[in-house]
């Protein structure tokens, strides 16, 4: 459809306009707001360290004051009369917030007894906020509780941000077919609190509530209250940071494994559907085709691997089911907890775990990866193409969740998957240039872009650590995590000259 004369004139008028001061003012203002709350959040680990008389509490207090001061300054200096946010500002705010939080959230790692370089600290913070779960820290079992709690809190904050972003922001920015998830709540105006705020608040209640219930269940299952809290933060957010170098394998408890598997699964389902269930649609979750595909695929992978391990004589049936269920859910939900080195199970398991790390969970959840709905749409297109070959004169449409999908959404999905795979390849190539072997580079790129956590291989596998990577590789992986978390497009769009011109 051609735009009308007025529309065309308006586009011409804004075509040559460079970004105005206000474009950035509002961005700094929002960053400032987030930093103030990040700074205030640092007082929580400070209080925990102070309670056990660990000197790190001073580091947290100083960092908290500094971050709150910078945030407050940005907020106050840019306070002004801003009306509606434009799409460009939306992109800028989304990206800059996801960069600013790890940038400042890394400070306690630098100045605490860990003595990390800023590169490693930024990687740890970025891995936390993007809920990746890759770590450069060793000797977790002996670390003060403040640092352990801060890592977990970063993942929890990131997880919350991802849910709100996935439900409210990405559908508006039409990133990778996400326009399919634009919900009516944003189209209806209300006098008092706009519905987007209400939705964010409802999702927060749910997220906080589920985290607390998860913590309680882990406490019941045998963790200490502190371990339970830290793991609950990193489970619902599908982050995967643990309080032990042995990750969940340290606890060696089937009950803990199953409790965590259940909550990782909850974290990887669309949170908006939980609200539907609470609104009196008990079958709302299972009616969603994305959830059905996801659960079916999980069942198939877990069933096949369990049978393979059991019939191969590696484990008894109950152990095979326990280890497979936990590790498959951990990787597919992009959490990254580990109970054992699954790469030692054999080449089939290496291949399976490598491929499922790209799949990811459902959209509108805390998990990363390509996401199930994109596979559904690609499968739909494949089906439609086959139908067209068989019946050239027939009409075949691509459907998702019972609705016909327009061409642009299908295009967005294919572009996303293409860019995703190209991004993994380019990142892997760049990592090999830093001296990493091919398996480490490819799995490192995959795990970073999918926000999983562990890769494959001795160095960065489930039993490894990212500490020994060269600095350049650490920065590249940090960028990969950001790219994957923001669904590529929200980052790549900034490299387009058209974005800055229009």
């Amino acid at each position, binding site marked *: 459809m051609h735009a009308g004369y007025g529309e065309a004139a308006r586009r011409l008028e804004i075509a040559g306009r460079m970004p105005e001061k206000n474009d950035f003012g509002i961005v700094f203002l929002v960053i400032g707001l987030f930093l103030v709350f990040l700074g205030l959040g640092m007082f929580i680990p400070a209080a925990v360290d102070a309670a056990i008389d660990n000197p790190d509490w001073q580091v947290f207090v100083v960092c908290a004051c500094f971050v709150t001061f910078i945030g407050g300054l940005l907020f106050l200096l840019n306070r002004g009369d801003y009306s*509606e946010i434009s799409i460009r500002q939306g992109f800028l705010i989304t990206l800059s917030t996801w960069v600013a939080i790890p940038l400042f959230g890394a400070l306690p790692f630098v100045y605490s007894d860990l003595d990390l370089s800023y590169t490693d600290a930024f990687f740890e913070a970025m891995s936390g906020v993007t809920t990746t779960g890759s770590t450069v820290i060793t000797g977790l079992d002996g670390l003060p509780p403040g640092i352990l709690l801060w890592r977990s809190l970063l993942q929890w904050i990131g997880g919350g941000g991802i849910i709100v972003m996935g439900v409210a922001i990405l559908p508006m920015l039409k990133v990778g077919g996400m326009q399919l998830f634009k919900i009516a709540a944003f189209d209806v105006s209300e006098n008092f609190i706009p519905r987007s*705020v209400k939705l964010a608040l*409802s999702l927060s*209640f749910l997220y906080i*509530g589920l985290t607390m219930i998860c913590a309680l269940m882990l406490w*019941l299952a045998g963790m200490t209250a502190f371990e339970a809290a830290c793991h609950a933060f990193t489970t619902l957010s599908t982050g995967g940071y643990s309080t032990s170098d042995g990750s969940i394998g340290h606890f060696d408890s089937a009950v803990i494994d199953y409790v965590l598997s259940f909550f990782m699964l909850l974290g990887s389902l669309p949170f908006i559907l939980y609200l539907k269930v609470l609104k009196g649609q008990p079958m709302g979750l299972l009616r969603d085709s994305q959830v059905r595909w996801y659960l079916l695929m999980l069942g198939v992978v877990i069933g096949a691997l369990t049978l393979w391990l059991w019939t191969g004589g590696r484990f008894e049936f109950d152990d095979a089911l326990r280890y497979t269920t936990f590790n498959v859910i951990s990787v597919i939900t992009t959490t990254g907890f580990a109970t054992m080195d699954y790469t030692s199970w054999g080449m089939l398991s290496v291949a399976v775990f490598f491929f499922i790390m790209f799949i990811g969970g459902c959209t509108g959840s805390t998990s990363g990866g390509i996401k199930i709905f994109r596979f559904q749409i690609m499968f739909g297109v494949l089906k439609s193409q086959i139908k067209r070959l068989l019946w050239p004169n027939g009409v075949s449409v691509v459907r998702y969740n019972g609705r016909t999908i327009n061409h642009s959404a299908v295009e967005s999905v294919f572009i996303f998957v293409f860019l995703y795979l190209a991004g993994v390849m380019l990142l892997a190539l760049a990592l090999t240039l830093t001296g990493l072997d091919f398996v480490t580079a490819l799995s490192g790129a995959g795990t970073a872009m999918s926000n999983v956590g562990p890769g494959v291989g001795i160095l960065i596998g489930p039993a490894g650590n990212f500490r020994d990577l060269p600095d350049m590789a650490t920065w590249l992986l940090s960028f990969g995590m950001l790219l994957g978390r923001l669904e590529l497009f929200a980052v790549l769009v900034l490299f387009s000259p058209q974005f800055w011109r229009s």
Partner: protein
Amino acid sequence: MKLFDLSTILDEDLGFSLREIEKAIFFIVLAVFSVTLLAMATFGGEYLSGYGLERLLEFSGVLKKGWMVRHGDLFLHEIQTLFIVTFFVEIILIISRYMRGWKL
């Protein structure tokens, strides 16, 4: 097929404002505090009620004196289980009430 069809995207309204972002962040932080307080109050209330009931049963002779000393772990376990159920119901009630009249 274009990699970025920015012209159509940039021309659309985003649908929310700075005021909403500020409100959302403020309310989310408030929600964290209020849900934590609710959890603490619920757990504390249930623990104290259970403790009071146990004292009453001890006083009335239904339970032997010193029951709590011997069964402290079991008591805590039962309270935790009860808390999980009540807290879950509370969260459901809060969200359902909050979303009343709202069509998703």
